[in-house]
C-alpha cells in the first residue's frame, strides 16, 4: 500500500514535467530538452519569491507566471527562427540552451543545494501503518487539479481546439483562421507553467533546489513522452504513472538491482522494440 502512495506521487511529478514537453512536441515536433531548464527556473523563482514574500501560494503563483513567460521567450527567441530547418537544429539549440541555463543558475544562485522548507500545517496522515506526508498530499491534490484543468482546457475551450488543430496540421489550422502564433505561445506558456509547478513541488518534496536538478528529468521526461506516443497528452499522463509504478514495484520486489533511471530506459527500449510508435499513439494520424 505504501508503495502505491509513493508511486502515485512519483508518477504525478513525471506527468507534470512531461505534459509541457508533450504539448511542445505535439505542435512543433521539437524535442524541447531545455524544458528541464525551465523546470529548474520555476523551482528557483518559487524559492526566491517564497523567501521574499513568506507566502508559499503567492510564490507559486508568481513563479508560474514568470516561468510561463520565460517559456514563451524560449519559443520566440530561439525556436521560432529555426522552425523551417531540419529538426536536428532546434534539438541542438535546445541542448545548448539547457546547459547554458544550468550554468546561469549556478552563477546567480551558487552551486550549493538550497533547502525549500515549507510546512502546510496539515501534518502527515497515518493510516494502518501507511504514511502519507503532507507534501505528498499537496502534490497529489495539485496534480489532480492541474490535470483536470488541462483536460477541460483542451476539450471544452476554443484555445484547446486551436492547440489540437495546430498539432494536427499547423498550415491547415492557419488557413482555417487559427492564430497559430498565439496558439504556440499559449502552449509554451502552459507547458512551462506546469514545469514550474513541478519544479516547486519537487523542490519542497525533496527540500532541495539546485542548478542541476533538471538533469534527470531532462531524460526521464523524454522516456515518458516516447512511451506515451510522441505528443499524446493522455499517453503522457498514463506513461508517467506506468513508469512510476514499474520503478517502485521493481524496487519493492528486488531492491535496488538497477538504478531507477536504468529501469526507465529499459522499459522504454522494451516498449519501442514491441511497439515503435509508443504505447498510446494519437489515433488520428
Amino acid at each position, binding site marked *: 500500500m505504501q508503495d502505491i502512495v509513493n508511486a502515485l506521487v512519483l508518477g504525478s511529478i513525471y506527468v507534470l514535467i512531461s505534459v509541457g514537453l508533450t504539448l511542445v512536441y505535439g505542435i512543433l515536433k521539437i524535442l524541447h530538452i531545455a524544458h528541464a531548464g525551465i523546470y529548474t527556473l520555476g523551482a528557483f523563482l518559487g524559492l526566491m519569491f517564497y523567501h521574499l514574500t513568506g507566502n508559499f501560494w503567492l510564490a507559486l503563483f508568481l513563479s508560474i507566471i514568470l516561468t510561463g513567460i520565460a517559456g514563451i521567450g524560449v519559443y520566440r527567441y530561439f525556436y521560432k527562427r529555426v522552425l523551417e530547418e531540419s529538426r536536428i537544429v532546434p534539438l541542438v539549440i535546445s541542448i545548448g540552451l539547457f546547459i547554458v541555463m544550468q550554468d546561469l543558475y*549556478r552563477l546567480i544562485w551558487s552551486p*550549493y*543545494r538550497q533547502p525549500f522548507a515549507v510546512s502546510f500545517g496539515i501534518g502527515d496522515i497515518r493510516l494502518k501503518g501507511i504514511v502519507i506526508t503532507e507534501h505528498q498530499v499537496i502534490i497529489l491534490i495539485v496534480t489532480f487539479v492541474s490535470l483536470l484543468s488541462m483536460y477541460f482546457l483542451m476539450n471544452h475551450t476554443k484555445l484547446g481546439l486551436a492547440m489540437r488543430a495546430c498539432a494536427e496540421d499547423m498550415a491547415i489550422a492557419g488557413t482555417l483562421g487559427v492564430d497559430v502564433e498565439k496558439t504556440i505561445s499559449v502552449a509554451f506558456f502552459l507547458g512551462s507553467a506546469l514545469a514550474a509547478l513541478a519544479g516547486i513541488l519537487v523542490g519542497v518534496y*525533496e*527540500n*532541495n533546489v*539546485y542548478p542541476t536538478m533538471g538533469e534527470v528529468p531532462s531524460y526521464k521526461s523524454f522516456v515518458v513522452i516516447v512511451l506515451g506516443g510522441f505528443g499524446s497528452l493522455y499517453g503522457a499522463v498514463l506513461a508517467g504513472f506506468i513508469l512510476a509504478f514499474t520503478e517502485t514495484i521493481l524496487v*519493492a520486489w528486488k531492491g*535496488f538491482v538497477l538504478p531507477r533511471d536504468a529501469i526507465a530506459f529499459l522499459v522504454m527500449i522494451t516498449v519501442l522494440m514491441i511497439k515503435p510508435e509508443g504505447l498510446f499513439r494519437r489515433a488520428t494520424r
Partner: protein
Amino acid sequence: MKRLGFLLILVVFSAVSFATIKVGLFVPLTGIGADDGLSALHGAQLAVDYINSHGGVLGDKIELLQYDDQTDPKQAVTLAYKMVQKDRVVAVVSGSYSGPTRAAASIYQRLRTPMISAYAVHPDITKAGDFIFRVGTLATVQGRAGAHLAVEKLGAKKIAVLIMDNDFGVSLAKAFKSEAIKLGAKIVYEAKFSVGEKDFRTVLSELKKTEPDVIYATGYYFNASKIVTQAKELGIYQTIIGQEGYDSPLFIELSKNHAANGTVITTDLDRDSEKPVVKWFIKEYEKKYGRPADMVAASTFDAMMILKKAIELAGKADRMAIKKALPLVGGEDFVTGFKKFTSSREAVREVVCQVILNDSFHRLCVISDPSIITPGR
C-alpha cells in the same frame, strides 16, 4: 634602446615572479562536484590568506593559481600540464573528486611535481608514486572507525548497512562490515543504492523488519538527508551512523522535520575543538563566505597548510625539496586531526565522531587509537 627596454621588463618580471611562491589548485567549479569545489576553493583561499597575513613562507607570499577541472578527469590532466609546464608551480593541491585527482596524479608523478589530495578517497591515488600525498582519511580507516563507534561506543549487536554504489560507499561499507564482524556484531540487513536515489522508503521498510540496533548508511549529504527524513517518517528511531559524506551544514538543512538530529558521523572537523586554529577557521570561514565550514573546506585548508610547512622545512620553494620535506610534516596546528604521513604517503588523522543535536554538529568522541587510524594496518 629597444633591447634595454626588453631587458628592463625581463628584470622587473623576474623580480615579481621571485617574490611569490606559485602553488596550483584544481577544484570542480562546474559539473556535478561544483558545490564541493566551491567549498574547497574557499578553504584553500582562506589558508593562503592566513599564511600571507602571517608573514608568508620563507619571507615570500604564496600565489594561488586556481583552475576549474569541471569534475572531468580529462580536464584535470590538461590542467596538470598547464600548471607544471606553463605556470611553473612548485606544488599542487587537489580540491577535487577521485576521478579527476586519480587521472592527474600520474601526470604530476611523471612531471615530478608534488601533489596533495585534500579529500578524494580512491586508494589508487597515492599509488601513482612518491610525489603524491593524501590528507583525506582513507575509506578503510573511516569504515573501521565507524565499526568501533557502532559496536564499542554504541554497543550495537545487530547492524543494518546501506551502501551507496560507488567507490566511496562500497569501500567504506566493506571496511565497516569486516571490522564490525571482527568485533562480534552481526550484519542483519544490507542494501545497495545508486548515488542519485531519492526514495529509500521501500528499502527502509524492509530494513525495519530486521530490527537492527544501529544503521550504518554510507552516502553524501544529499542522500543522507533523505535517508534520515524517510526513516523518521517510517518510525525508525535507531541511531543512524554516517561518515564524512554527511559532513556539511546542508545535511541538517535539507533534512525535514529536524530528522538529522541524533545522527552520529565519523569525520575530520571537530566543531567543538579548543584549538585556536580551528576556532579561527570556523569563525573566519563563516564570516567570509556566509556559510558554515564543512569537511571539504577544512581538508583543503589543511592541505595548503601542510604544503606551507613542507616548504618551510625544505628551506626553499623547489619541487624536489618539497617532496622530500612532506613526509616530515607534523604538528598540532591543523584544522582536522592531521598528525603525519605514513610511509605510503597516507594521512594519519584522528577520527572525530560528531553527533547532531539541536540542528548542529557536536563532538561525541575522538578516536585516536593508532591501531584504528593508521592506514594500511
